[in-house]
């Protein structure tokens, strides 16, 4: 039963049906999973893997916050603390956040959304996953042997002279970089060459546009990170000083090369989040996006302009005044593309038909935190304000607002929105809303104090701190505990729903995104019959009885 979007299909069955032959059960046995070429199974494997990485990174975060409960030593030594924040950053950025939404939802949904049967290079896709796993294991090996203490930014000469195990961490990140490149390559070729008849570029789901922009950044920026980390590894292991001042090297060159990747990297993290939000808002509001072209092209705009702003991480490092000016002004422009999206998402609600659901709750959180966090980014880009805030908790709060308040909210929205499609089951909406509230409150309690800590002058990566920073640190740790609690609840009710959740049917949300036109869970070939796409996605301007909700929640 794969309804075409062109004609009025027959009335749906009374009870929603769980697709009996789906990608999860079509082949059994561990080998069928480990050697799969099915993009959906690969997506699920990323889901399991990256969620484990998230739990590990979250554990490090909790340990950091507990240590910061008192101004002096609390539960660990300074050396351990320094490793803790380094590994928190490395795990969260490289092993969790960069692969997560593209790896899980990009893999699962992109082919379905363009009407294809798989990505362009399925075997390469599997290789991408194994490269991710290999990189994670190499980094894990490094962590078990103490891990690095350099901060995830690996600034030289500290990173090239420290005694800790920097090299396995660098190599792990290097290998994961390959995974990132190959995934991006796969998605770009899929988008160019596998779109089904009827899906032109201007009729693609906005999710695909954003993932495409992400992939462009991935293939262009990640190799530069690769070579930079390799140089640091060589210098640390062999003393071939490219960045060592005693050998004529320049530590600032490292910073330029590192941030040339790592600034676009933040867009690799946020663009997939924006991809999700575009889909969720259209479904929740039962309305087409306000300004399709603007939202589609702003993704490309972010990808392009984002390559020219890296120097705003280096305003106090001693680069020239001219550099500072150029990077500052360009950073203002990159912010505009996000502003366009925010306004267009909000305007999508106008004349819509909005229903409050768990994905919508995460959408609300996302919007507020992205606007606030994004504008603190603009504030940082005014250069002179950054002189005070650079390397303080203000910056930490800013990027956590975007990465947790933005990307994690979108990740949770994606999980809750597509859970019925991926697993054919519904979770408890009540518990969904409860945990969304906990997460949003916990998030505020954790990170708003950190803005204030930055204002009052607390630098980042501080193991001990002057007493006047004590109360705000306690508040932040309390919030973090609430966050952790919220995540735990989510994990529980989602796991329960896998076995005992109500059957979802093909389209519990009544969404007109293309992926909702197939069964839940999808069959291995994605569609039972070749679907016809003659109307744009999320077009709710006509009543189509056959495309509606199959199970009222």
């Amino acid at each position, binding site marked *: 039963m794969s309804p075409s979007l062109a004609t009025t299909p027959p009335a749906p069955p009374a009870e929603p049906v769980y697709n009996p032959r789906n990608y999860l059960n079509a082949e059994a046995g561990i080998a069928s999973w480990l050697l799969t070429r099915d993009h959906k199974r690969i997506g699920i494997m990323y889901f399991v893997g990256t969620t484990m990485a998230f739990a590990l990174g979250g554990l490090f975060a909790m340990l950091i916050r507990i240590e910061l409960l008192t101004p002096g030593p609390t539960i660990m030594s300074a050396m351990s603390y320094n490793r803790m924040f380094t590994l928190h950053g490395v795990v969260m950025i490289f092993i969790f956040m960069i692969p997560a939404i593209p790896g899980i939802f990009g893999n699962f949904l992109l082919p379905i959304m363009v009407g294809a049967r798989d990505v362009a290079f399925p075997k390469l896709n599997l290789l991408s996953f194994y490269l991710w796993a290999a990189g994670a294991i190499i980094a894990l090996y490094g962590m078990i042997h103490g891990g690095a203490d*350099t901060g995830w930014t690996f*600034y030289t000469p500290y990173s090239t002279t420290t005694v800790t195990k920097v090299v396995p961490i660098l190599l792990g990140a290097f290998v994961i970089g390959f995974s990132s490149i190959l995934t991006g390559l796969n998605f770009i070729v899929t988008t160019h060459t596998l779109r089904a008849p009827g899906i032109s570029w201007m009729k693609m789901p906005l999710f695909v546009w954003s993932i495409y922009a992400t992939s462009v950044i991935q293939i262009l920026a990640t190799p530069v990170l690769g070579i930079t980390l390799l140089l640091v590894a060589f210098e640390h292991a062999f003393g071939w000083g490219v960045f060592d001042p*005693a050998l004529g090297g320049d530590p600032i060159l490292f910073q330029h090369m590192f941030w040339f990747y790592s600034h676009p990297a933040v867009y690799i993290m946020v663009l997939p989040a924006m991809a999700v939000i575009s889909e969720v808002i259209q479904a929740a509001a039962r309305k087409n996006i306000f300004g399709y072209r603007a939202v589609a092209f702003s993704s490309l705009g972010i990808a392009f302009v984002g390559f020219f702003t890296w120097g705003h991480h280096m305003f*106090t490092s001693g680069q020239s005044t001219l550099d500072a000016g150029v990077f500052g002004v360009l950073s203002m422009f990159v912010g505009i593309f996000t502003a366009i999206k925010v306004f267009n998402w909000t305007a999508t609600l106008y004349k819509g038909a909005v229903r409050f659901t768990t994905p919508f709750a995460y959408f609300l959180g996302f919007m507020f935190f992205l606007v606030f966090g994004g504008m603190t980014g603009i*504030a940082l880009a005014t250069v002179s304000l950054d002189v005070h805030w650079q390397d303080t908790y203000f910056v930490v709060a800013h990027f956590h607002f975007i990465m947790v308040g933005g990307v994690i909210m979108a990740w949770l929205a994606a999980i809750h929105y597509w859970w019925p499609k991926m697993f054919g089951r519904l979770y408890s909406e009540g518990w969904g809303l409860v945990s969304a509230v906990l997460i949003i409150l916990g998030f505020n309690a954790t990170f708003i104090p950190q803005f204030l800590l930055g204002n009052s*002058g607390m630098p980042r*990566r501080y*193991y001990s701190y002057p007493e006047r920073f004590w109360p705000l640190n306690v508040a932040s740790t309390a919030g973090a505990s609430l966050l952790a609690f919220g995540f735990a609840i989510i994990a529980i009710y989602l796991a329960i729903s896998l076995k005992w959740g109500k059957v979802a049917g093909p389209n519990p949300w009544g969404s007109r995104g293309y992926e909702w036109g197939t069964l839940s869970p999808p069959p291995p070939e994605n569609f039972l019959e070749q679907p016809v796409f003659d109307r744009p996605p999320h077009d709710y301007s006509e009543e189509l009885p056959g495309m509606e909700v199959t199970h009222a929640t």
Partner: protein
Amino acid sequence: MNEFMRKLLFLPEEGSAYAAEVDRLHFFVITVTMISATMVALATLYFFVKYKRKSETQATPRVEPKAIHEILFIGVPLGFFLLWFAIGFPLFVKLQNPPKDAMDVYVQAKKWMWKFSYPGGPNGTDVLRVPAGRPVRLLITSRDVIHSFFVPDLRLKQDAVPGRYAQTWFTASRPGRHQVLCAEYCGIGHSAMLAEVVAMDPVSFDAWLAEARRSSVPSAQDWPGEGADPRATLPEQGRRLAAEYGCFKCHTVDGTRHIGPTWLDLYRKSEKLEDGSTVIADEAYLTESIMDPAARIVAGYQNNMPTFQGRIPAPEIAAIVEFIKTLRTDAVHPEPSKGPVYVPVTGYDPTRASR
């Protein structure tokens, strides 16, 4: 209003006029940010209430944006962003261009302390004394890894990068104390690498500077007691005693090998003994060497040193050991600092680096 915003945002005191200007921009930006975020939230809430879903089959119109919408959505934010940049960047340029009559101070960061030296002397550690109301230019570098000189009260920050000098400047508005923190991660001691800027009224500052230059003891300005007699310090006594007891007949203080091992960098050095083992030259070993020199002799030296057992009382041995401890190649000297001590590539002059 200014004070209210400053306290609301947990900002520290404004130790300079520049800090006050930075804060004004900050308040402008944060106010507009909070208002916009609230407006977005309210708009969302309003739409959510007004356009609640009535039925699961409800159709919605295709609303296409008009040009005016996109122009507003782009123009208004861009206008604000560029305005803030137009205010903030010239302020930054001001920070990059010290006035010509600024007083210079060299700042050298090393794990995990700050060293300050005035051209013409003196130099010391962790306390930077400056005259209030006069501009001070800081020339900042690092001995080892990247550090960052951060004074929250002055809204001032500049990275200390090895291999080059960076400059920044400030004018403290009034006498007071301002904490200095290291803002670039540099290892275990990163959060302990604190210092203080002590702004003094100009008259007291001039008097202090003259007194400090007259004094021949390096650590005078670090002592908390303002009127401490410099000649009472242990290292100074130790130097006198070492001369009186004839130590300098066999031990040099400048690194030259003589009849006995040189005292330069001797403290805590890992010495190889003539029997092949190594020992760390700590207080215990140094004391033992004075009392029982033949017990553990450094490889390559003869057993020539007489014992001073019974000839030197314990407090005097302590003074000599304390003197030995000050004899480090990177020790504080009463003369002006000669700059970083790491060995650069031949001919590489960090002060020439233009970036």
